[in-house]
């Protein structure tokens, strides 16, 4: 039975393969969460804000492990190019070309290895920008690099 010589070696190898595949590493596989659904959160879907004023962004961030950074991206939706929040359908104004659209792009690091964080941020809407439909998008990462995005349709009016 010389020919069966190699077979046991391979059985051992396969058992080794099977055994190794079970090891559970303690790694983070969970995205952080953005909560906009509470009394004092802002902006709310379809809200109208006046140009030349300020508003306060407010939400709740949480993660199973450690929060990383967040970013706010406000850009126009004059061409209806993206379609963001499906819970609420806002009435969009007719499509138009941007002349001097409002652009707000800011990044913030969440310091202190936090699991929960409630950002409050004052955002100034300049006077001379185009009114119309805008998107308010929040992006949040945890320390591992998982990202969650949440966007809200809102209008800037005179």
């Amino acid at each position: 039975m010389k020919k069966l010589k190699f077979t046991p070696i391979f059985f051992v190898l396969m058992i080794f393969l099977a055994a190794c595949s079970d090891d559970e590493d303690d790694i983070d596989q969970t995205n952080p969460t953005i909560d906009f659904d509470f009394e004092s959160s802002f902006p709310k879907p379809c809200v109208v804000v006046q140009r030349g004023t300020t508003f306060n962004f407010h939400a709740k961030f949480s993660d199973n492990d450690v929060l990383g950074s967040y970013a706010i991206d406000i850009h126009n939706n004059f061409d209806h190019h993206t379609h963001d929040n499906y819970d609420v359908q806002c009435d969009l104004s007719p499509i138009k070309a941007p002349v001097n659209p409002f652009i707000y792009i800011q990044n913030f690091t969440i310091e202190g290895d936090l699991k929960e964080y409630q950002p409050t941020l004052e955002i100034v809407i300049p006077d001379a920008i185009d009114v119309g439909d805008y998107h308010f998008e929040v992006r949040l990462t945890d320390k591992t690099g998982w990202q969650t995005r949440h966007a809200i349709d809102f209008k800037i009016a005179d």
Partner: protein
Amino acid sequence: MLSFSQDCKHTFSGKVMDLHDSSILLGASVHIKEINKTVSTNPQGEFIFKNLCSGTYTVTVFHYECEPLTKQITINQEHISEVFKLEHHIEELEKVEINGNKRKVFQKKSALSTTVINKENLQQRKETSLAKSLEHVAGVSTISIGSGQAKPTIRGFGFNRVVVVQNGIKHEAQQWGADHGLEIDQNAVEHIEIYKGPLSLLVGSDAIGGVINIKEVSIPKKNSFGGNVSLIGRTNNDLVGLSTFLSGRKEHWFFKNTITANSYGDFKVPTDKILYNGYVFDLHNHQLRNTAGRVLNISGTIGYTKDDFLNRTIISNVNEENGFFANAHGLEVIKSQIDYDKSSRDIDLPKHKLNHFKITNETEIHKENYTLRINAGFQNNARQELSEPSEHGYMPKPTSSLEREFNKNTYSLNVFADLYTNSKHKLKFGVNSEFQDNSIGGWGYIIPAYHRFSAGAFVYDKIEISPKFYLHTGIRYDYGTLKTEQYQDWFLSPVNENGTIKEEYLIRATAKDFKFGDFSASFGGVYDLKNQMFKFNLGKSFRMPLANELTSDGVNYHMYRYELGNADLKAEESYQVDLEYSYTKPKFNVAVSPFVNYFPNYIYLNPTSDYYEALQIYKFQEAEVFRFGGEITSSFLLTEKLFLNTSVEYIYARQLSGAKKGFTLPFSPPLSGIIGANYTLKNYKYFKNTKFELDWRFTAKQNEIVPPESPTDGYTVGNFTMSTSLYKKDKKWADVYFRVNNILDTKYFNHTSFYRIIEVPEPGRNFSLEVRIPF
């Protein structure tokens, strides 16, 4: 000076042919046991041994598709000549797939786990792209983009970690891109060798995961002319296609020509809604909108062969255009004013267009003591990605839809020599050189223009320890340079300099020069007993970092992220141990091929927790990586007509250091296996060689993920194939292939599909019919 006695000046020559039709068997080798020398046949199937002493010799002829043939030849006069006719049954090859006895000759050529696929195998399993057609091979899977395009992966590695070689020249395109597919017409492919392991030794940089070697192996018979026309239709994406093949030969000159034209509509998925990131996309008629496309491929060969000389020039042009899923290309959700549902066949934005032109020239000179092969090639890969322009961040709305354009010219020159000596060594030498010129265009930036030069030389020795045991060993050195050009934004961005805001055209990449040098090596062996074969291989491979890995500094609009290169990256290195054990009996065979793999510096695009202009930063970083896995394949011949085959593949990968320590690698294929049954019918009236094949794939859930992936559920999916040849008065009239994919119309996700990240399932049930009429 050596002097020979009168007795030792004999010459033994001969020819190797197919037993059935006396056609030449190319690539055969002839071995004389007593002098321990192997030579390969020339393009006319001829071989010669000189300076033989009189006596009786044991001559064995090998061909990778035939049973070896051994004869006792008595040399007693000056010139002895002999014709060897080998049994060559293409049909039977498919039966004893992968590990059959006849494949042993091929298997012994490499200490790595290998699979060979010929034109008939490929025809039987033909899918929508070459890579998809190879997916049934254990250890091979694909990263697909819709129904028309896919790129192959070997044991979980794809992109620039797998090399595709066609006619001796490395295929060079935009392999690094997730939405790139392999630009090769499967209808023009004759022969494919898949090497599942590191093979930098023979092909240079990038051959870390494996090599897919596509070769033209046949030469038409003298004074012949023939060809076939094939028509194909598929129901899932309403594909209609036509492919023609012509070939002919006068005395020394021969030609081949393949033309393939396909047009297909949006592919259908077994769902009417796609849920992604909180959005709901309603699908019209189950169609994944805007995934239609068209293909026009032309390729041809002109060759000249006389005696021991062969020269062929192969020219091919692959031209494709296809759309990307309109609602979400990459991670970005798009709502467009385009009425995508007005037709399922139009190709709207976003889409890509590509043209891959390739010309290769191959010269082979077969002499008694050596074979010399020179491959020269030029290829141009022109790729355009078009999308609806929209403003983003500080970038105003661009005026054209040309988002990205890549134009790459690659010039290659390779020289290989095989030496046949009377010693126990069979040596192979090779020199590879390649120059690339990459230019870019469009309003989106991700990779700078660059020039790359690389050259390498190797020596490879196959040493006979005993007739049953061969060692394979070799060493190689490569040197490469990479010059990247500066890239500056075409729009202004505000920059905060000591409290004052200035508007600037940002420089995304500075001009840089990089130099790389690296050794590759391999040490392996093949131990061949009657029914068993044992292989081992220890290999070191490397990969030169890509321009984007070194210098990226910009938004990847397709993936909606900010990619940052790392100029400090060294050449990626990989060490791998491969083993293979196979046991073959006439009615049963099994092969087990495990591997263990270690990278000191795997180059990994790491999603960080930071933002740049509100986009998540992904940074190219180095990580130690450990992987193991392998495949088990087996087949059982239950009766003369029915055989079963099974295969299982598994990969485990861990990052041992770096930011994602403890995580796996991106696009990790899940545990998967196939059970198949193949039944051959008796010839009946006009039907010959009729076969039914049913195979079922079982794939486990994939929980091994890295950001931004999500776990993918397991699934089972079945395919059915029926093929037959129609005969009229003993003359073949047509070959017919009927195939059903996803028999139960199962909704499932493929973890390694490009569309997986946006929750798009795989195509639903498909019927396809191909009729091929020879003339």
